């Protein structure tokens, strides 16, 4: 019974966190993988999502409304930042430097506005259930369901609409895209906004589950970056698979070893796996994104 309780908790908890990571890493994969912009400030959009979620939920009195508004606000902020960064976004070194500056600025702004004390957002759904004797919040299940729904919508958007096609075409050959009438600068701006909005959404979703601090974005960025690299640039569904399997594996391992050692073991396992079989997470497809718009 104790083992069942430990395993079920570890795996379920791992999947929930994995889906949150999948959302955030999908956002980075749109910006970095599809558009080729190395966005070091991606974690800051996640952090701002959590802060704005906390702020709006407390001021308008509805967390669920904040959940809808905040990603839109962050998408708009992301688009604004992309417009400013346009002159440097094709240069890797300059885009790293400038987005690093954006990260510091956003982090500093959060510290200035809301202070360094950790913020707490009440769980919008206090109820929970017993998972073999351990309490588990229904809210976490809702987080997982929302993440699945949004990832499905993202798939529709990128794989079944003209926008998704234009996004990849703009990156593949921007001059040819311009020649055939694709508004490349606008597509880049919208793509960046989409990625920022996804990071913001994952931030609002986790806000009731974590302590909200200005440096929370820095912590998640390293993990999300690793997931995107392991899954393959531009291959969004691979990074979703990596995020969920990485997190679930970590949850499972923590049943048998100390949780910190479990995290290290998971990293080592993923590294070894990618060394031995680099295309393990490639869903049986080619490494390069297909230019016809399929196979993301």
């Amino acid at each position, binding site marked *: 019974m104790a083992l069942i309780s*430990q395993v079920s*908790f*570890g795996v379920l*908890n791992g999947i929930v*966190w994995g889906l949150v990571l999948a959302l955030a890493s999908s956002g980075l994969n749109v910006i970095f993988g599809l558009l080729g912009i190395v966005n070091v400030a991606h974690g800051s959009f996640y952090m701002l999502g959590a802060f704005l979620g906390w702020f709006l939920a407390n001021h308008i009195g509805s967390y669920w409304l904040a959940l809808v508004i905040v990603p839109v606000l962050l998408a708009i902020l992301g688009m604004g930042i992309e417009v400013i960064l346009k002159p440097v976004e094709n240069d890797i070194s300059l885009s790293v430097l400038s987005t690093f500056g954006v990260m510091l600025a956003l982090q500093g702004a959060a*510290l200035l506005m809301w*202070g*360094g*004390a*950790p913020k*707490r957002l*009440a*769980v919008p759904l*206090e109820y*929970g259930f*017993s998972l073999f*004797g*351990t*309490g*588990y*919040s229904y809210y976490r299940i809702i987080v997982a369901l929302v993440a699945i729904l949004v990832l499905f919508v993202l798939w529709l958007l990128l794989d079944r609409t003209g926008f998704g096609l234009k996004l990849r075409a703009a990156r593949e050959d921007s001059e040819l895209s311009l020649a055939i009438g694709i508004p490349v600068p606008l597509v880049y701006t919208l793509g960046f906004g989409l990625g920022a909005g996804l990071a913001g959404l994952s931030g609002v979703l*986790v806000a009731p*589950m*974590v*302590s*909200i*601090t200005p*440096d*929370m974005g820095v*912590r*998640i960025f390293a993990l999300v970056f690793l997931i995107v690299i392991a899954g393959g640039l531009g291959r969004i569904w691979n990074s979703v698979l990596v995020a969920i399997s990485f997190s679930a594996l*970590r*949850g499972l391992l*923590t049943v048998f070893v*100390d*949780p*910190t050692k*479990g995290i290290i073991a998971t990293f080592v396992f993923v590294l070894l796996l990618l060394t031995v079989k680099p295309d393990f997470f490639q869903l049986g497809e080619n490494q390069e994104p297909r230019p016809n718009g399929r196979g993301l």
Partner: protein
Amino acid sequence: MKDYTGVLTRRDFLKLVGSSALAVSVVFRQSCQSVPPLTVGLQVELTGGLATYGYWHLKSARAAIEKVNQEGGIAGRPVRLVYADTETDPATGSRRMRKLILKNNADFVIGSQHSGVCLASLPVSKRFTTPYFPIGEATQITGSQGHEFVFRSNYSVKAHARSGYGWVMDNLGVNWTIIYADYAMGQSALHEWSQGLLADGGRLVDQIPVPQGTDDFGPYLKKVNTEETDVLLIVLYGPDALACIRRSYEMGLDQKMTRFGNTGSVEALDVDFPGAESLFSITNYPRRSVDVPQELQEFDREFRSRVGVDRDGKGLENGRIVDSSHYWVPWENVHFLRDAAEACDWKGKKDTTRLIKALAGVTVQGSDSHPQGNKYIREIDHQGFHAQYIQQVQDGELHVLASLPPELGEYEPTAVL
């Protein structure tokens, strides 16, 4: 020809003005040199993980220096404050300590809340023979790594544990699981609390290290043996403490055991949420005025008013929760300095040995200079001892349940200076 006798010529006028200006500047310079300001440095966390503490430490130090200046300064000399942000980072902190001493000419430095910063700054203080008053609680600051220029007026981790473990065993249970921050302070606390527990016949069911900056406490708290644990001792601070308290409630651990937090667990934290209810903790000073001992009430009122804190422990300007366990330390350290400097007729660096003698072994009573209450700085290792309080969250507020006297925290010194 016109007679200019008795009339000031242009040449005379210029000479007069020039010599007057010279005389005034010499006199002014001499008068300034006769009472040069005494400089107190503050090494403070204004950004990073402990920014919540730093905000209050700066206010407290400023208020103390303003009061001291209103009362005539230190031995007739005005006092000025210079401060530097450590960014809650040991390397940056020790670099800024050097800047405070060498560039800002700090005569003394009141130190950081972060133990890592304090430990990294100890060699700087020794090298430049500058008296240093760290606030960080790692035992080794006044233990294995302490030196003659270091004075800590607030408790060490070891003193906290010595002071509190008996109360927890007597009132909450003898089978403990300790979940702790996996760095110097947490490891030190694990060692000290468990040592007391085991020496008195208690049982350490498990010890769970947690890396700093952990968002998901689920896997760590799932390790707690709910069948055998009476007390879950939480040795965490800031965002980690908050995350742990919330998740332990969500997982129903508050129904299966008693949760007890160390001093950092509820520092500067709004405890008005369901997960915090019934949580016990140990603190250096009550958050609410009503819990301050009667004989200290008058001093507490004056202290809060000058720093800008209301009776419930919230900032008058912005409602921020005060770090009640520590914000009195910069205030008291400024007063310790004033009294010692005046007692030994301190004039400059050359008198540092006399200042050290004046500070070592000093005993103070509760007063407007020492609102936290009676305390003494042990001569042998320069470690301070003072009262502690056990508190519990009831109806969204911290209530003091018991007071622990200063001598309860006494331990064998690990350094002899």
